[in-house]
């Protein structure tokens, strides 16, 4: 949310997102689990898609299953997951496993968590709509590290060749993966050029600029799928978590949790959170 823009819908979205981010942090703190970094990088996108882009006929696949927490919080904000269920996250006898489960949660189409599956699954949903002559679009969120997987490219070839113009996939490009930066491990940048080379209409956006996420994701496309490379910050919104590999793994301590909430509130109040200028200083 840029401070200079005053779209009431987007302002409201930013307010709701603050609540969701606080809830996401609490969830990870109480459960004592990691992956908070990648969840914070994805939450703005998930929130925008589910609250402002997708309609009843649309479907969503979370290919980066390790951002399950962010998806659960988004579905909770829509009333699809109860507060009671959310409190069981990552605990014994929960529906909400660390990666999305195969059944039991409305809005979760597939168990994901092994990378390189989601785009193919989403292509199948999109192809089914074509075959059945159904309305609606299919959205898929992948990570950037996930493009190391050969199956992701198989699905890209397929979706482009089948001209699935009802499919939009978004890459949560936070630049960090399991054991290093994406540049260090297997550099695929610029990803957008690669998608364009496959003939896809491709947009590069700030993945924390709510207005651009909503505008670009909702935009129709002809001739094939749309790719959106969303430049994001792992750990977005919490200064000491931003762009640090360890927040792919670390659980949150009591002190860190309290500090994170303060930081989140402070940055939201002064208009820093979801601000392109803050998050993207020095990045192209």
């Amino acid at each position: 949310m840029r401070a200079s823009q005053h779209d009431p819908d987007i302002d409201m979205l930013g307010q709701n997102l603050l609540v969701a981010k606080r809830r996401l942090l609490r969830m990870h703190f109480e459960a004592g689990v990691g992956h908070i970094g990648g969840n914070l990088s994805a939450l703005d996108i998930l929130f925008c898609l589910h609250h402002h882009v997708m309609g009843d006929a649309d479907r969503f696949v979370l290919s980066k299953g390790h951002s399950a927490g962010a998806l659960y919080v988004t579905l909770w904000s829509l009333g699809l997951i109860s507060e009671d269920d959310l409190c069981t996250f990552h605990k014994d006898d929960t529906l909400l496993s660390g990666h999305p489960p195969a059944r039991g949660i409305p809005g979760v189409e597939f168990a994901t968590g092994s990378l390189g599956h989601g785009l193919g699954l989403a292509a199948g949903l999109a192809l089914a709509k074509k075959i059945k002559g159904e309305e609606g679009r299919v959205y898929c969120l992948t990570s950037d590290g996930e493009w190391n997987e050969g199956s992701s490219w198989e699905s890209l070839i397929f979706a482009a060749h089948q001209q699935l113009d009802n499919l939009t996939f978004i890459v949560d490009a936070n630049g960090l993966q399991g054991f290093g930066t994406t540049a260090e491990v297997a550099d695929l940048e610029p990803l957008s050029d690669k998608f364009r080379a496959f003939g896809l209409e491709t947009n590069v956006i700030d993945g924390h600029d709510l207005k651009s996420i909503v505008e670009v994701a909702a935009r129709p496309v002809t001739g094939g799928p749309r790719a959106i490379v969303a430049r994001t910050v792992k750990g977005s919104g919490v200064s000491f978590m931003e762009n640090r590999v360890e927040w792919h793994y670390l659980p949150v301590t009591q002190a860190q949790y309290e500090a994170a909430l303060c930081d989140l509130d402070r940055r939201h109040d002064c208009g820093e959170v979801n601000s392109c200028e803050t998050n993207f200083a020095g990045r192209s």
Partner: protein
Amino acid sequence: MRNEFCWSLLAAASDEKVVFLTGDLGFKALEPLQAAMGKRFINAGIAEQNMVSVAAGLARSGLRPWIYSIAPFVYARPFEQIRNDLAMHDLPAVLVGNGGGYGYGVMGGTHHALEDYGALLTLRNMHVFVPTFGKDVPAVVEKLEKFEHPAYLRLGASEEPMGFKVPEYAPWRRLTEGGGAVLLAVGTVAGPIVAMALELPERHRPNLWVVAELPILELPDEFISDVRSSGTLLVVEEHMVTGGVGQMIARELLLRGESPARFAHVAADGYASGRYGSQKFHRMECGMDPASIRSRLAEWRMIEHGNIAA
């Protein structure tokens, strides 16, 4: 069986829910299906992992995907997609593997399917269909059209003995009857064994059973009774020992308190000599050709000396 499969599915394909995905195979075999199904016939290219994920998306949307390739390319290459995308969600999609066992013969080991149903049956919700004869295929396809779970159909080259009347398809069938040992075979390897069995005098003729649906959910009383009365069981399958029907049936019998005095398991054994040849060549090397089976029965003294266990 590939032609029987094509024609059977052609009959089913008028259902708008049926979608056929091929991993770029089917030249000179599946053209009629391609012509009839139009946009519901999809050549997914040489990309089996994506093909299975796409099929899961189709099945999740209420369609009925069939996923076709040479057997190892449809069960081994995309195993994780089968596990996560199909089996975990219990989606009704049919994997069709052409050339079960050593079916692709001298094409070599990469094209053989020696651990297909064993590997797949470790997955929850997965079911396997292994027709014995080409004539079984229409009934199996008809069953699969309405099947509500993920399934694997293992096709092979049918070998129907001259003059033998194939009994109507059933998950368990007794193909030959006599006073000899009990044989349990899986798939097309049973064909030549039927011919051998029919040549034996009735008092020595084996009770040759075939099982076509796995996992083993039922065990016919007549089968148990045959095993009990002869005290023998010889399992023959073109599949590795581990995960094979030999292991499954031993478990089922033990759970029921049955333990035949003589039990043997003739299974695929890879490439013992390191040399390659036809399906027949590899079957011989593994001792599952009719002559080797006959020798095994003689070792058990189930041929020359009659049924000593009876």
